[in-house]
């Protein structure tokens, strides 16, 4: 039986992690179908049909799908599930919210946040904030799997031409009402997919001081991250949080500034290719994962860092 991928989108276009989830789905079985549930989402459905790994697109439209409410999405997918061996989507807040609701309806034990497909029924997943890896075999007839997007490369986005089949909408779930979404718009790269991430922690001491980080991030074309302590203190908004309960990032370069390196923060960044730590406490745990550690006062080091960057003839973007 084929694998059903749940597409994440904003009704206009696919969200980037759909491509990573598609790769994971295609590693489970080459026969991947994708379902897209939304309102006026034809353009995103077309985009989905162009992914070469997707063999068929199922499109479901309805006003009650406009805001991606799990209570409305789950019945659609549960109904489709009889034709599929696996249901797959990203382990970001979209998938984390939705998939368990589907799994419970299907009486299936979900496998969350996998980082490797070992075989169609066996997966590798981090536990204890990534301090251990568990190999898990699912004995359920239908498998519900969420994938850690940063552990799978995005699939090709053009060249495919899968047929798009329209599916009837399910009834609206009336006890949940969407009110509003506050998205923080930024011209910077997305945290989850950026090549470079510059993150600040409690050591930044104030939201104003984050401009020292912003400046460097702009120069490097980097995304801005933060530790939970910095978000809790109100220095920066929650969408920047990196860690066990925030976002997991694996950039080519991660620069941790004024971040001590609690287990929970390391969980979100320690797979980064190159890690830099700038901290005045030489004993801070962040240095244990850093390729390059600089023991220094960040308020002196960051302006110097900017100066040194300005001296470079070229900077990779």
């Amino acid at each position: 039986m084929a694998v059903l991928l749940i597409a994440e989108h904003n009704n206009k276009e696919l969200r980037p992690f759909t491509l990573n989830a598609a790769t994971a789905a295609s590693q489970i079985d080459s026969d991947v179908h994708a379902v897209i549930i939304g309102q006026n989402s034809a353009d995103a459905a077309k985009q989905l049909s162009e992914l070469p790994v997707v063999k068929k697109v199922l499109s479901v439209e309805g006003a009650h799908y406009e805001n991606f409410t799990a209570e409305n999405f789950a019945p659609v997918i549960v109904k489709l599930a009889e034709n599929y061996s696996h249901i797959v989507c990203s382990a970001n807040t979209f998938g984390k919210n939705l998939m368990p609701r589907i799994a419970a309806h299907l009486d299936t034990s979900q496998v969350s946040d996998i980082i490797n497909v070992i075989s169609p029924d066996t997966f590798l997943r981090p536990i204890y904030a990534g301090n251990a890896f568990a190999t898990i075999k699912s004995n359920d007839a239908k498998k519900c799997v969420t994938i850690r997007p940063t552990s799978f490369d995005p699939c090709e986005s053009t060249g495919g031409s899968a047929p798009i089949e329209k599916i009837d909408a399910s009834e609206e779930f009336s006890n949940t009402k969407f009110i509003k979404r506050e998205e923080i718009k930024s011209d910077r790269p997305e945290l989850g997919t950026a090549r470079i991430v510059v993150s600040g922690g409690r050591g930044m001491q104030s939201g104003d001081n984050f401009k020292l980080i912003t400046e460097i991030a702009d120069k490097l074309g980097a995304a801005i991250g933060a530790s939970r302590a910095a978000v809790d203190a109100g220095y920066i908004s929650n969408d920047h949080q990196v860690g066990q309960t925030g976002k997991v990032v694996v950039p080519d370069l991660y620069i941790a500034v004024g971040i001590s390196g609690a287990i929970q923060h390391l969980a979100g960044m320690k797979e980064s290719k190159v890690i830099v730590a700038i901290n005045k406490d030489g004993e801070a745990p962040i240095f244990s994962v850093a390729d390059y550690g600089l023991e220094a006062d960040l308020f002196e080091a960051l302006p110097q860092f900017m100066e040194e960057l300005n001296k470079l003839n070229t900077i990779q973007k």
Partner: protein
Amino acid sequence: MKILVAVKRVIDYNVQIRVKDDGTGVVTDNVKMSTNPPDDNAIEEAVKIKEAGNATEVVAVTVGEEKAQETVRKALAVGADRGIHVKVDGILEPLAVSKILQKIVDKEKPDLVFMGKQAIDDDCNQTGQMLSALLNWPQATFASKIDVKDNKLEVTREIDEGLETIEINVPAIVTCDLRLNEPRYASLPNIMKAKKKPIEEIAASDLGVDVSPRLEQLKVEEPPKRKAGIKVANVAELVQKLKNEAKVI
């Protein structure tokens, strides 16, 4: 309103866990255990809602082995009125826990069920959503703000793009983020008082729920170790290394 809060006993968040040599799991003997951190936020929120006069009773429930009862006792010490301990040994998957909680909900008939958004041991992030599916109740996951309005809740959710606000009718499930509130510490007099509060013990086998695992944990291993790094003397050296050695800028 009556609020049921589910709490889980996990290895303390400050402990650096160790993987067992035989690959069957992580070492838990002689390791400090605590309440799963966002479950503390769930209890705190329920107690605050009661203190504001919007709830009449807060019941704490845990599912697990003998010692899991400590988490219920702690919830009682910070303001929960009574406790329930569903006793069961061995590995429990979120699906099994949600089925047990469904039985407790059938019995207790709460208006709200709160719990942490994720347990920091298995990092599954499933139980709340599964319970709301089984009950066909609304779910407000990853809550960082809750406003009680008659028979509705307005909940702000932390999502990847920022914040989302939804309105849900009770009965409903809320899974709590660490930013929802600042959990209080139990005072000594309240810890003493909590010892007198009732905890009902129920054997999971009496609930008629199949809790047998569906997943096999074939192996638990240490993640690959990072190569030891170096300390640089100054910013100029750092930038030079990033440019010429790591070649990332």
